[in-house]
């Protein structure tokens, strides 16, 4: 038995890495100072896919990501760890998408990829923390979903058995394929890059990257077809432009408030009821807690 797996992954700003330098003097986030990383739970998802590939030889893993050109890094990272190929979905028309428009765009790309048994993605991305895109992609494709997965245990007779992490326990469910699984951060961590694969895929590039870089060893892209990362826009996936990006997003951002952090001068409190109450009110008001 072999399975075709699509892993959905996102490049995100590392919001967990917000140290003191990442804040500007006015207390707002200096987004430029945040490194772009592979969304952590998407790595847990990739590991689940790799585990299936280990157990069911001949299975293939296609990485799919949506984002600007630099998101091709995510595809390469996936290849270095054992994925087989990658698709970058990129187009100005996708910009400003909320979770629903994002899910629509991803679902059109999945349809274009065609044959799949499993779609695996992280539970949520650390920049939005919504956990909505997985279930919405499943709905758009009209396939079942299993969220908060900790382990895809086995696949038998066209059914996958998946262990889920609940609030205070675990649950094992069985679902027919094709199936979308969102993987929880409590699942096992992703294996590191493989040195051989790193060498093999180091020069894997999208067509835009190849054009921009004016590489003189351009021949390798015809002699080694696996170095060509697929790049698709709206037209390539036959997406309805009205359902993409801002126009396809039912939710709109009315306004954004920055959470202002304290400067480094310590405040000294005695531990009296009054002072502790003031502190809690302050932390609630600036959204540190609550």
């Amino acid at each position, binding site marked *: 038995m072999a399975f075709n797996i699509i892993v959905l992954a996102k490049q995100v700003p590392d*919001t*967990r890495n*917000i*140290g003191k330098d990442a804040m500007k003097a006015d207390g707002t*986030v200096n987004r430029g100072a945040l490194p772009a990383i592979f969304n*952590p739970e998407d790595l847990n998802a990739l590991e689940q896919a790799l585990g299936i590939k280990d157990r069911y030889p001949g299975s293939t893993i296609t990485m799919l990501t949506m984002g600007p050109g630099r998101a091709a890094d995510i595809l390469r990272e996936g290849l270095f760890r054992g994925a087989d190929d990658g698709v970058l979905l990129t187009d100005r028309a996708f910009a400003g998408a*909320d979770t*629903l428009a994002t*899910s629509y765009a991803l679902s059109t790309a999945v349809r274009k990829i065609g044959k799949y048994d499993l779609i695996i993605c992280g539970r949520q991305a650390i*920049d939005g*923390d*919504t*956990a*909505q895109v*997985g*279930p*919405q992609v499943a*709905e758009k494709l009209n396939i*079942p*979903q299993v*969220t908060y997965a900790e382990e895809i245990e086995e696949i038998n007779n066209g059914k996958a058995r998946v262990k889920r992490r*609940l*609030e*205070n*326990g*675990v*649950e094992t*469910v*069985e679902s*027919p394929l094709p199936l979308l699984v969102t993987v929880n*951060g*409590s699942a096992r961590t992703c294996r590191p890059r493989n040195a051989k694969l790193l060498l093999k895929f180091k020069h894997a590039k999208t067509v835009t990257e190849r054009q921009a870089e004016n590489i003189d060893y351009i021949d390798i892209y015809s002699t080694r077809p696996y170095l060509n990362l697929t790049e698709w826009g709206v037209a390539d996936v036959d997406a309805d432009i009205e359902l993409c990006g801002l126009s396809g*997003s*039912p*939710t*709109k*951002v*009315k*306004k*954004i*408030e*920055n*959470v202002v*952090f*304290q400067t480094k001068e*310590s*405040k*000294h*409190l*005695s*531990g009296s009821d009054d002072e*502790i*109450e003031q*502190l*809690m*009110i302050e932390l609630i008001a600036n*959204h*540190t*807690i*609550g």
Partner: protein
Amino acid sequence: MNNIIVYIETDEGAVADVSLELLTKGRSLADQLGCKLEAVAIGNHLGEVGKQVFPYGVDVLHIFNDARLSPYTTLPHTSILVNLFKQIKPQICLMGATIIGRDLGPRVSSSLGSGLTADCTSLEIGDHEDRKAGKTYKNLLYQIRPAFGGNIVAWIINPDHRPQMATVREGVMKKEVLDPLYKGEIVEHDVNDYVNADDFAVAVIERHIEKSKVNIKNAPIIIAGGYGVGSKENFDLLYDLADVLGGEVGASRAAVDAGFAEHERQIGQTGVTVRPKLYIACGISGQIQHVAGMQDSSIIISINNDANAPINTMADYVITGEVETVIPKMIKYYKKNSK
């Protein structure tokens, strides 16, 4: 009439706290909008749900009672909500940001093409002017939530699509009985009119209670204890505070070596490196090896009976006092002042 509807989560017929909290919020929003508050319960053994929810001001309770609907699985609950919403056309739908709500909400919103905002910390009614389109929207639901790892707060609206859907975590809203004798109407629906046979393709094989592994690395709030906490029993206070604030408990090496906490909670050079948004150091002196593992925390509070503990120099707030008196106060005043 376009009403507000709350999805009621039940466990063995008992209504979850988060659902009652949302009913309280839903009732006040309904009063503001001049509409009714409805609730929908889907599951098995739902005979006592009415008794539990009517005191919160529910006008109409929709019941879908069928053995196949419990334990929860995604597809039949989705079909029921989607078909019910097509009939009754609610303007707002609220759900708990629980594992069920966060599994079900997006699926329903995708099917209806309506917007959903996850993990709202505040919900308000207000107007919106779209200057570009020259349109004014009255009485929209402002869905207010932190984003970007808690570094910004976004106000989200759904101008053109209904229902406006939002999820809210447990404990964010306050639950309050409106009137113990409040009378609402129960509508029992025939489940077969709402689901397909295919909806039962996913089966729950087994479930059991199992403690989750400690994950302090990604916790946004960490309550860490040092040797100064004094005992394993005093560490329980840290767990209480972590529960209330939605954080995790960490420990210094000295506390782990003393047996106050498990090894996987150790923060520092030989433990885990963390960068939470809030780090509360309790009875931690601040040796370099510990500081290396937490110095990038956004806000640091130090609670220590030694006003000259080294960690105090890097703390945003220094509370000089005993851990066992300060923490209960923090819990008390957090509960008092959070919504």
